């Protein structure tokens, strides 16, 4: 069939192909389990993440006594703290990714569709922002506004939209030359509606893949910031700050480092797997046949 391009896929066929990708489905299951338990378990548990129990400091993991993963040097239950860390890390990952995707897609689509001087100006601004060193930028922000959770969303979102803007702009440039865009222009569709109804929906394939790859990057960013002590405010914990705490005590109590580090690695790994599965599912010419046979 002429013009049988891979772009017809954003519908139920995508879901069916994704289901054939076993790795992605397992990864999605693991993530869902982690997310749900991070929401439910702390509410049911008799322990909380902030009350110190000074008679129970640095307990090893045990099946007796209720602290399944042991306690930290202030006697707080590690399982609950790790689950809270999960919650914070996932929240930051999703929220900051949402910010960066919305901003990046709009910026890139407008620049690419408008073209000419507008495009040049908008993309030079992206280039300038690219050259801003990220860590000092976040340090300045935390000095100015204190250690607030929303600041992490803004800081990470503000940096990670740049890549998306570039990718989307490139796609929009090539979309603009396609016949159906010309057909819509010939029908008298104005620029704003054109971007909303014709350009952006056709970009979604690329954006979805990129989003699943942005989330783990953002989570790692946040862990890195927390490791440097720039992240969430104590006693709240993110996976990054738990790893930082654990690292300072790792000779005596390795489980304080290993547990949050394993959870962080698992989350990042799962998102990468889902991204992989989505990429295969969205590109029927590429790899998905192999998975169907497997």
């Amino acid at each position, binding site marked *: 069939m002429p013009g*049988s391009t891979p772009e017809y896929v954003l519908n139920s066929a995508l879901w069916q192909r994704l289901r054939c990708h076993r790795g992605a489905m397992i990864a999605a299951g693991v993530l869902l389990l982690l997310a749900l338990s991070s929401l439910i378990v702390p509410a049911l548990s008799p322990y909380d993440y902030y009350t110190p129990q000074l008679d129970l400091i640095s307990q090893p993991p045990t099946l007796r006594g209720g602290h399944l993963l042991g306690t930290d040097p202030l006697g707080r239950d590690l399982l609950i703290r790790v689950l809270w860390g999960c919650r914070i890390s996932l929240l930051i990952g999703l929220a900051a990714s949402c910010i960066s995707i919305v901003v990046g897609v709009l910026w890139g689509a407008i620049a690419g569709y408008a073209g000419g001087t507008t495009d040049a100006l908008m993309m030079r601004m992206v280039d300038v922002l690219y050259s801003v060193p990220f860590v000092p930028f976040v340090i300045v922000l935390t000095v100015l506004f204190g250690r607030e959770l929303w600041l992490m969303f803004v800081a990470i979102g503000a940096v990670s939209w740049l890549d998306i803007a570039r990718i989307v702009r490139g796609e929009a440039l090539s979309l603009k030359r396609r016949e*159906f865009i010309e057909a819509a222009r010939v029908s*008298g569709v104005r620029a704003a509606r054109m971007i909303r109804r014709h350009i952006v929906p056709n970009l979604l394939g690329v954006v979805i893949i990129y989003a699943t790859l942005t989330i783990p990057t953002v989570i790692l960013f946040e862990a890195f910031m927390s490791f440097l002590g720039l992240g969430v405010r104590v006693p709240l914990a993110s996976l990054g700050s738990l790893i930082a705490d654990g690292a300072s005590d790792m000779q005596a109590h390795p489980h304080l480092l290993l547990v949050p580090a394993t959870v962080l690695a698992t989350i990042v790994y799962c998102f990468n797997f889902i991204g992989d599965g989505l990429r295969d599912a969205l590109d029927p010419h590429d790899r998905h046949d192999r998975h169907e046979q497997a």
Partner: protein
Amino acid sequence: MNEDPLLQIRDLSVSYPGAHGRFTALCELNLEVSAGECLGLVGESGSGKTALLLAILGLLPAQSSVRGSIRYRGGELLGLEAARLNAIRGARIAMVFQEPMSALNPYMRVIDQLSEVPHVHGGMSRRKARQRALEMLEAVHIGEPERRARQYPHELSGGMRQRVMIAMALIGEPDIVLADEPTTALDVTVQAQILSLLQEMRERTGAALVLVTHDLGVVAQLADRIGVMRGGRIVEQAECTQLFSQPQHPYTQALLSAMPRLEYPL
């Protein structure tokens, strides 16, 4: 004729910057289209047929230089600001593209795509626009319009997509429909159906049809008048029957003799 022709093109020249200096796509071209007629434009690839249609709709790439004048009902189209041009596109002058797959947005249902035109132009409510779109689908003889309307372009066959394209061009009730090789991408039986559909729609709506093609057989069936294009100019213009019986220009004669005929062995 005592009144203005519907579309009047005077001394239109278009050139693009190319790899070897400027490339001239159209060269001082003159053309008139009067209301309700069917004008066929034939010529080889690169003779400027498509550039002419794009110029009429203001779709030429930004770096191309355009001189001359294109008047629609006496009003100049060249250099018209975007908002005024958008009011004419789709509503007054519409276009049918060559490749119906790539000319339909793959992520939009047929009905959304069709109803966009009356929604954008007439300020028609979504509901009324959808109603109108369904009527159009019925008018271009698409079976089960309700079901087809909910489908995406890739779920339709080539001929059906081209019917949708035609419905999309005619839904705004334009005075002029520009068709850029509307049957080239289709197989022969479907071609015949699409041509008879174009003819039927023209009779029903009274719109003028500018039919661009390299297929002389296609224009012979439909056109009242034929313009032969070569190298960015119209080298000969004549009534359909006259052009086929007494071609004047040597290029037209060559073109006609290049058509395979059944009565002579090849």
